[in-house]
């Protein structure tokens, strides 16, 4: 079974510092990592490959530096990597990104399944996965927490919802977006790291994927950023001191006073 994993390189916010005077993220020197949700997507794809004897292709759209994310995916067990990169893609919103990724997928290979992380931690939209499915005219299920069954032309998944989960079946090819609960990603293996160093990465430009100029980059994006600003940092409140009993009394009366309890 052939699986394509779509990933994104994002700034690592794990060890990020907040500038205490401005309350904004200190972005200088922040390293780039694979979007955390995409690690679950990569792991799930590799597990499917191991069960069904297929191939996993990882694909990203981004600047040339995103190659390092692809190499890391190879170290985690992915077979092939595709970098979709062109200055003409810059400024793409989720519509133009979905279009570009769908065009790239059409260019590269036959596939049974596409897996994306639920959302990226920088944009937080969760829109590109379903958008790619629509552009490719295949079904999708978002928020998948478990693949119950997968075989040629068929899969059954559990979709996480606010009040529980739904069990859904669908024909392949299809696209799923996955949440953290689906698996525990493995660490890169030594062999994987060796492979990742020498792996050839397929480079795709706007021309190679036959992208329509009016559908890519900022030009092809229906949404435009009007302004970007830092929200005022959240102000701390008051400290409640005293014995546990006094503290509890003060707190409950404060909450009651604001009619929240």
């Amino acid at each position, binding site marked *: 079974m052939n699986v394509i994993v779509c990933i994104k390189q994002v700034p690592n*916010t*794990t060890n990020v510092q*907040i500038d205490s005077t401005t309350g*904004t993220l200190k*972005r200088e020197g922040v390293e780039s990592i694979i979007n955390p949700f995409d690690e679950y997507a990569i792991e799930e794809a590799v597990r499917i490959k191991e069960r069904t004897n297929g191939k996993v292709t990882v694909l990203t759209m981004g*600047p040339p530096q995103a190659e390092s994310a692809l190499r890391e995916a190879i170290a985690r067990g992915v077979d092939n990597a595709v970098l979709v990169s062109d*200055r003409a893609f*810059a*400024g793409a*919103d989720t*519509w133009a990104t*979905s279009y570009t990724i769908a065009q790239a997928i059409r260019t590269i290979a036959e596939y049974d399944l596409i897996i994306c992380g639920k959302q990226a*931690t*920088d*944009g*937080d*939209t*969760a*829109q590109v*996965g*379903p958008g790619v499915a*629509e552009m490719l005219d295949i*079904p999708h299920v*978002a928020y998948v927490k478990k693949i119950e069954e997968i075989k040629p032309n068929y899969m059954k998944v559990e979709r996480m*919802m*606010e*009040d*529980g*989960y*739904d*069990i859904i*079946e669908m024909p392949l090819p299809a696209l799923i977006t996955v949440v*953290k*609960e689906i698996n525990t990603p493995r660490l890169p293996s030594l062999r994987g790291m060796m492979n990742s160093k020498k792996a050839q990465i397929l480079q795709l430009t706007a021309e190679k994927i036959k992208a329509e100029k009016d559908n890519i980059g*900022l*030009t092809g994006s*229906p*949404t*435009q*950023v009007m*302004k*970007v*600003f830092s*929200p005022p940092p*959240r102000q*701390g*409140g008051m*400290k*409640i001191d005293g014995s*546990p*009993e006094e*503290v*509890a009394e003060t*707190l*409950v009366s*404060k*909450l009651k006073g*604001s009619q*929240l*309890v």
Partner: protein
Amino acid sequence: MSNQIKVIQDKCIGCALCVKSCPFGAIVLVDRPEHPKKLKLAVIDLHKCTFCGACMEACKKFGAIELIKEEPINLDIDPSHYRGIWVYAEQRHGEISPVVFELLNEGGRLAKKLDVPLSAILIGSNIESKAQTLIQHGADKVYVYDHPIFVEFLDDPYSDILAHLLEQEKPEIVLMGATNIGRSFASRVAAKIRTGLTADCTALDVDLSNRNLMQTRPAFGGNIMATILTPRHRPQMATVRHKVFKPSQKDESRKGEIVKKPFDAEKLINRTNFLQFIKDTSAKVNLADADIIVSGGRGLGKPEGFRIIEELAEAIGGAVGSSRAAVDSGWIPYSHQVGQTGRTVSPKIYFACGISGQIQHLVGMGSSDVIVAINKDPHCPMMKVATYAIEGDLYDIVPWIIKEIKKQNS
């Protein structure tokens, strides 16, 4: 011509204001050994730049950054053909989702400003009786699709019918809840009808001069806010975060129109098949809808610690949440996790018991109205952002809070 952005070398003094302002980390300072004062120079990485203009704003004083945006492509869309505000009336198992009443309230405010009607679209099975509820909460018109094919939410038929209706009726704005359902299929609809979609908005307004919807949303986990426009495409679609806007008041005397459009269920795209719903029995109160959330973290020290968290949640009528650390330790299921890789919540009160407040957790609950932090470490980030910070052992303090609440309730 494509978009162009450049740094005017003579004007740049290497102050780094632009570097700090760039939400995408696309600007770096490089040395300029040839410069008489050895000033640094800002360089923009065009692969990362999205031409948002934040740097130009930051560089106002020096005017060293020049941005030329490409002429918009010529579209066959005349925005004046699109009128009215629509709210997608999401339902789950036959009940209208709470976010819908918030959308009716905010949508109603915008409709008044634009002087257009507010419509709702209701898709489900045996659902028609709910149309009246939507009218009582502010809808002037409700489009109803009541058919067994819609009994459970599936992306294919729901996106197909909504896309068709939007193309026929041409509203100018469509608001949907940023719920699992809304975020799953709104993007499919926007892709089908080639329009813009802005995710998880926390503030909305309209520009009366051009009827543009100004959609403000957090990005980078809430560390920056962006205001987004869909200037040339219609309808302007947005998903809106739950609990940001107040729900509309019910008015039983309100009158409205119910519209049932004929459609052929056989012709709808319908590739997925719904088998079963399994309810989460571990949660008495749904995290997303809860007004009060009591969360426990690493500071609990042991899985049994969640008993006291559950007890407080029950006493105060709230839901149980957790930090990632507690989930990763296997103390509580992932469905309770709040934060970057879990859920984003904005309750009225958030209790953080034994949660230090890593940035990944803060971004998932930082917009709560009131934060109560109970922690042994007075210097941890959670204690700094808390409305009420209580230093001490949660096992000493929480039982007293439970006792006090029970006393007040009785």
